């Protein structure tokens, strides 16, 4: 599968038919005094791929853990597969797959046994698990490592095995918490390809990430989270249209401080952002804006006209300050 196909598909209209798989209203998660999730509302349809995007500590993982019935809801309501996680946790968990942020593969077992044992937690017959395990190892390209211990696998292989493991129970809903963090580009693309195939098979995906390219590749709809709340929600393309302009002009002025020329650039574009090393002009027609910059007699050392990206939206909504 060419990754660009996956990208093209992100513009598809979100599948809204049928009853939603996950519905949250006024959802809150508190840890003592700390409020990790501060009253969010969302609804995820069957077959949809939905992403939670946000800086560290925005509340993405807390939200995911509540959906996975691994963390009690502090307030508000949550329904997963039409059921209440507080009451029907085991039933809900039997129908979802979870890929946690940290690898939690069973280090005391081999690659194949990891799948066989995990399937048994779902009470599946051994014969069924064995068949699925073979298919899944093939799907994640680990057939040759079936008899090896988990420790001997590379980071990317462990991640792939974790995804295979989450699929042993043939889940309707797959929850992935930062699935590609820490992987090299080859491993990431292989994973994206596998996730894209799952989506095509109709598996509903819920993903957290802080990689914009991942969100654009995998998610039909996104929630941008910041400090426990939703800063925005929508399809990636719509978010760009709503919170950014079509294009961005980046200007670098070499020795001159950007702040010095910033005043002259006021009003040239819909929005102007002055950074320590460059000035960003948000405009629907980048070339025209650049032309005006030149007409003002300004000579930037380097210029770049590019399409607006999700990253522009993200930084606009969540700010450039480092949150720790």
């Amino acid at each position, binding site marked *: 599968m060419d990754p660009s196909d996956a990208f093209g598909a992100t513009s598809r209209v979100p599948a809204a038919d049928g009853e939603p798989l996950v519905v949250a209203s006024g959802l809150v998660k508190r*840890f003592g005094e700390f409020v990790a999730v501060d009253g969010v509302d969302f609804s995820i349809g069957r077959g949809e791929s939905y992403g939670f995007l946000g800086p560290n500590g925005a509340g993405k993982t807390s939200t995911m853990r509540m959906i*996975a019935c691994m963390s009690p809801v502090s307030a508000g309501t949550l329904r997963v597969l039409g059921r209440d996680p507080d009451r029907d946790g085991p039933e809900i*968990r039997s129908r979802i797959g979870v890929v946690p942020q940290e690898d939690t*593969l*069973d280090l*005391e*077992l081999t690659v194949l046994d990891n799948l066989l044992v995990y399937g048994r*937690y779902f*009470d599946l017959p051994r014969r069924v698990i064995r068949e699925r395990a073979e298919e899944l190892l093939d799907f994640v390209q680990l057939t040759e490592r079936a008899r090896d211990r988990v420790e001997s696998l590379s980071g990317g292989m462990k991640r792939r095995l974790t995804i295979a493991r989450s699929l042993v129970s043939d889940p309707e809903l797959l929850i992935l918490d930062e699935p590609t963090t820490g992987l090299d580009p080859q491993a990431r693309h292989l994973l994206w390809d596998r996730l894209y195939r799952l989506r095509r098979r109709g598996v509903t995906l819920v993903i957290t990430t802080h990689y914009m390219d991942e969100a654009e590749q995998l998610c039909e709809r996104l929630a941008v989270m910041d400090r426990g709340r939703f800063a925005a929600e929508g399809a990636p393309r719509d978010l760009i249209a709503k919170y950014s302009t079509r294009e961005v002009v980046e200007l670098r002025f070499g020795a001159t401080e950007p702040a010095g020329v910033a005043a002259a650039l006021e009003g040239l574009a819909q929005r102007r952002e002055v950074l320590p090393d460059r000035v960003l002009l948000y405009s629907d027609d980048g070339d025209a804006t650049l032309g005006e910059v030149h007409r003002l007699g300004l000579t930037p050392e380097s210029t770049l006209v590019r399409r607006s990206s999700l990253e522009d939206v993200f930084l606009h909504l969540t700010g450039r300050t480092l949150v720790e």
Partner: protein
Amino acid sequence: MTATVTTPLRITPLSILGSRRALRLIERNIYVYRRSWIIFVSGFFEPFFYLLSIGVGLNKLVGALHIGNRLVAYTAYVAPGLLASSAMNGALFDATFNMFFRLKIAKTYDAILSTPLGPNDVALGELGWSLIRGSTYSGVFIVVMALFGYVLSPWAILCLPAAVLIGFAFAGVGLAATSFMRTWQDFDKVSLAIIPMFLFSATFYPLSVYPGWLQLVVRATPLYQAVALERGLDAGALSASLVGHAAYLAVLGLAGLVVTSRRLARLLLP
């Protein structure tokens, strides 16, 4: 935002005993030991070596001792004590070191709790596995005792269920204690509790060697209760106090199990 009371997921007193899902965790452990059976087998030797060195070696020097009203050879006196301590050690090894590895290092339980299994299933499953492992060792040890002629009465048939009960008590306490541990260094505290208990809980000599106040202290230890139970059953010296020992161990195990499931829920399902 209105403050609502958070109901802890999946922990009710009734659910603690009696989920079939706990069997899946036992199955997992069988998979693990299938590939490292030599570690499993090595557990048979420790009590056997003790029996040879202390029992047989000291037998000639010490002579006979009383169990109840019965006079028995020293080795026959020590054997049920070693049975009790091996039931303890067998249960504790899985319940402490292995549980800590799975809980803190390998994050095995994090993965398991994203499946239909809950913390009570994990606690019960680990406890069940410790019992299976510990009882296997105890069973073999009882056979060895019988072969050497240290089984003194038909009541000794109850030594095996008693060993299971001892395993239950110590596995429960071990799991509960492990759920509070932060680093491997904390296990020194386990050794600090186990070794004196092993040496001084009337395993190797009668309680009567101690002054009165110290007898009370020793009586309070779980291993003393375990040794007294096994020794009484082995010799057929039945008395009401045996029921008391059994009750003590059962309560200890149950309390450990309840604490363990609650701690696991707290640690793993915040």
